[in-house]
């Protein structure tokens, strides 16, 4: 068999050239590597420091602190509380909201089996998500949180960071389609970021709970990350109900501010 061709400079036996690599060639190669690295680092530096339109909203420690435990739907007497930590710009949260959540509300919340809590966790990687959380909180001021929550998720591809640099414009259009909402006061609320302290309170709750992904669900004693189809969601609820004595199912979060059945908002 023919011998494998050996790169110059390799081999330990006498007579085999120890290193025939030309230093000059190596130097040229290292220069190429260095140039690629420098150009790459420069590009990454540009990408990470360039001004990003629509990203002006983020956590602002100078804002006054407010107390808020998220938005609750369902009976205060429900056997179990489920808490979702969600991000409006997260695709899996959108998938859950549009595919699973209506069944959850209809079959588990409205029947009094569970109480459902939503807590904002706007992730840094999503440039328009703070706008959406603030918009939902503005709708909550008019008792329209869940309607806005649903509308925001349903229109995610119209206002997210890939779709627009002006999310507030789209979010106002989304809100305007909600029956009974006062668009003037909503728009003022959104433009002046009136509800940002509330969103920040939710963000801090999420940080305190060490949430690492969205959506994250606390169903009784169990924690789940990522999308859940209804059957799986229901199975986890039933498991928790089976092992929890009636009235002892509040594990998902502080439920001191529960709302009556079907009433949206905090």
């Amino acid at each position: 068999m023919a011998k494998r061709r050996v790169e110059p400079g390799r081999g330990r036996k006498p007579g085999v050239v120890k290193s025939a690599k030309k230093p000059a060639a190596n130097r040229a190669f290292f220069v190429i590597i260095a140039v690629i690295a420098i150009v790459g680092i420069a590009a990454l530096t540009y990408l990470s420091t360039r001004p990003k339109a629509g990203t002006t909203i983020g956590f602002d420690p100078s804002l006054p602190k407010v107390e808020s435990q998220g938005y609750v739907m369902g009976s205060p007497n429900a056997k179990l509380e489920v808490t979702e930590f969600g991000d409006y710009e997260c695709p899996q949260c959108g998938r859950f909201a549009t595919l699973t959540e209506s069944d959850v509300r209809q079959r588990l919340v409205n029947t009094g089996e569970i109480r459902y809590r939503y807590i904002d966790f706007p992730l840094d990687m999503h440039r328009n998500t703070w706008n959406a959380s603030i918009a939902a909180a503005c709708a909550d001021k008019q008792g329209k949180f869940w309607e806005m929550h649903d509308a925001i998720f349903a229109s995610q591809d119209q206002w997210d960071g890939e779709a627009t640099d002006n999310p507030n414009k789209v979010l106002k259009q989304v809100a305007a389609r909600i029956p009974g909402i006062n668009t003037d006061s909503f728009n003022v609320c959104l433009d002046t970021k009136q509800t940002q302290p509330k969103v920040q309170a939710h963000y801090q709750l999420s940080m305190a709970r060490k949430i690492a992904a969205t959506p994250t669900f606390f169903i009784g004693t169990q924690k789940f990350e990522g999308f859940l189809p209804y059957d799986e969601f229901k199975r986890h609820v039933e498991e928790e109900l089976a092992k929890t004595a009636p009235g002892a199912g509040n594990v998902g979060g502080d439920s001191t501010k529960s709302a009556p059945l079907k009433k949206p908002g905090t």
Partner: protein
Amino acid sequence: MTKRMWMALISVAGLLLGIYLTLYKFGFIGTLACGVTSCETVQTSRWSVFLGLPVATWGAGFYATMLILTIAGLQERYVDSRGLALAMMVLTGWGVLFTAWLNYLEGFVIHAWCEWCLGSAAMVLLLFVLSVLDFRELREVGEE
């Protein structure tokens, strides 16, 4: 160009990619450049974090280690080091297994693909093939 030179080049490219995705994960980049696949879905899924660190950061660490090893392997002192070749083969072999697991998650659990992750998978596979060839070549020379 020797195999180790190619490996060094691939490692630089992989390192830059790992840093890019890490910066995205920590919110420094804004929107991820992603043409035809669902990078966002993959990068925000629960499987995008491994042992408390973004998978992209682990990837950057992997490529940085490979870059150091390959550059060391280009120095005259280590050019015929079978130990170094073995280390690179083991490391890239582990990288291939880890990448295969990530690709399985993308295809069968998350049901979304990320073109950057697929690019990285191709690079890891290429690094493994080159390191196997490199190791075999040194072993054969040693046996002469």
